[in-house]
């Protein structure tokens, strides 16, 4: 495809401010993610499903989208993406604690089922893969009105086995719609390894079936992710049609708080993966580049933890939904409820 994967070392055209923002967003997502795990382990949040290891690609795409103008049909690991777009740690804490003011669902859905109309983040359910068609449909509407918005949608490599994956890429490609399909390939669908999920190592190979570009990027390399995000979104926005991006990422946690990956993955592999974590490596890179100076990262962290502590307190103090409110919003209610 046209988008070249240039050298991933060095700043490679990204200015210091961008790089710092990239790091800060990733760190913010990670800290929130860790907090949500902690709440789960303490028995205060019944469920969590993590984005740890996926942050680089999520943040990179988030930074290149136009919040509230572009369309976003994410999946449950996209914590980092939603934060960049404008959702807040408190939003997701309200969700994890199933509070009435959870903006995703009012406590109706499990956490990590993102949605925010104001930001054009389409409400996500649990069924894997359905959202790709929604992105294609949103892009179709934009195309019909002659708008240059882009529809971003993401999923895991496991989700790419569903029929909807094929139907969405096919439709978007036929009509050259501005959809950026991102597969966050972490090598596992719960316990099922990629080679039981697909016959070739790269999901990006599937782009050839639709005559669209397929790009593989190291999802643990934030700068490479940023460039791919910038270029593919720009390409889609300019009317050249959809693109399929595959980010090779690490799933640094078990599938979810209900899973224990030590049952099906060796301790050595899990140890080794930690060393490839995008976040710690990126900090080193940025410090080497002088983008972050000695105390910067720690200062950032401290400030973000403060935000997080306040958000946690507020979320815990927030009210649970009223039981009878379960009956509301099945169809539009005449009384505005």
């Amino acid at each position: 495809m046209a988008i070249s994967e240039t050298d991933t070392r060095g700043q490679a055209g990204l200015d210091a401010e961008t790089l710092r923002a990239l790091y800060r967003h990733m760190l913010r997502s990670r800290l929130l993610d860790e907090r949500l795990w902690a709440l789960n382990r303490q028995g205060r949040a019944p469920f969590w499903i993590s984005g740890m290891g996926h942050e680089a690609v999520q943040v990179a795409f988030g930074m290149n989208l136009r919040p509230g103008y572009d369309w976003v049909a994410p999946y449950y690991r996209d914590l980092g993406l939603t934060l960049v777009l404008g959702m807040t740690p408190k939003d997701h804490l309200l969700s994890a604690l199933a509070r009435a003011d959870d903006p995703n669902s009012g406590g109706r859905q499990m956490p990590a089922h993102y949605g925010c109309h104001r930001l054009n983040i389409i409400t996500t359910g649990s069924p894997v893969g359905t959202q790709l068609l929604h992105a294609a449909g949103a892009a179709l509407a934009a195309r019909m009105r002659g708008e240059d918005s882009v529809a971003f949608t993401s999923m895991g490599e496991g989700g790419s086995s569903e029929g909807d994956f094929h139907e969405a890429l096919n439709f978007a490609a036929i009509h050259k719609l501005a959809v950026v399909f991102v597969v966050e390939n972490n090598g596992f669908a719960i316990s099922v390894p990629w080679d039981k999920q697909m016959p070739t190592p790269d999901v990006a190979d599937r782009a050839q079936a639709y005559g669209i570009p397929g790009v593989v990027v190291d999802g643990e390399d934030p700068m490479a992710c940023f460039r791919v995000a910038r270029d593919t979104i720009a390409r889609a926005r300019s009317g050249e049609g959809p693109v399929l991006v595959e980010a090779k990422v690490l799933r640094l946690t078990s599938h979810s708080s209900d899973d224990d990956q030590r049952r099906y993955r060796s301790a050595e592999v899990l140890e080794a993966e930690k060393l490839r974590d995008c976040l710690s490596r990126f900090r080193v890179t940025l410090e080497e580049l002088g983008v972050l100076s000695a105390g910067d990262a720690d200062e950032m962290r401290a400030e973000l933890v403060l935000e997080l502590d306040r958000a946690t307190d507020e979320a815990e103090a927030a009210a649970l939904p009223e039981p009878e409110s379960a009956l509301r919003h099945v169809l539009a209610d005449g009384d505005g409820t």
Partner: protein
Amino acid sequence: MPTKTYLEAIRDGIREEMQRDERVMILGEDVGAKGGVFGVTDGLQKEFGEWRVLDSPLAESCIVGVAIGAALNGMRPIAEIQFQDFILPAVDQIVSEAAKFRYRSNNDWNVPMVVRAPFGGGVHGALYHSQSIEAIFCHIPGLRVVVPSTPYDAKGMIVAALRDPDPVMYFEHKRAYRAVKGEVPDGEYTVPLDRAAVVREGADIAVFTYGMMVHTVLNAAERLVPDGFECEVVDLRALRPLDHDAIVASARKCGKVLIVQEANLAVSVSSEVAAIIAQDCFEHLDAPVMRLGGPEIPAMPFSPPLEQFYLVTPDKVETSLRELAAY
């Protein structure tokens, strides 16, 4: 008022609403140059262009999933499914997605989409072009399910469906397309999506039915008149939510009830109507709540004697009515 076929009435409703509201669009197999396999969308692509009347790939989940996305982004799409039988690949998009958007987002999102599909048999359509599987959707909160039986309702309900902010399943009986004619006003009007209609008044037996069976039942009802029995015939029209009050009112009034549908009976609309009556009209009932529908076989067969065996005919309805009358 001009007389039109059921098919023309649907098309008129769609065309007029497309003229009034540029957000309305159609997505489906063969809806464009061919005008759909039955001709419902005939001429619309010419009038409104290729985008607004878009030939989709042969992929029902795609049709509905894309329609959902377009609805989210400001359109008012009609997702046309060529035959109700072929809606099943789209069930996940309809039931898991469209039906749950408003609820799962706590009212932050909604899906103003209409899914149209022809159903029903008696046209040599065999196992996969004759089915009546609306029951599947009638179980699902978050959906509206409607079936018009007259040209008047067909137009008024398609317009209402296109203005409704939630997903509406709009099922058309394919035998009605050309066989059923009636008066249809020119211009704009709507018919509510949640009201049954008493299409024949009577005090002896209440018959609840919908779709093409309305006409079958009306035919049979006349046959009892010479014997002094007047049936009240209720066209359910809205299958989800059902018009509970109308059902209870007619059942209480008559005390005897027959429910007629073309679909097989088990776990169907007829079951729900009977259950409502068994719970809410107990003290008014003078006879068992009777049901008449397709046999419990996977679908309507092709060969004429088999198809005929399947179909609910005026004769069969008459037999059931007489049984009830004599009770």
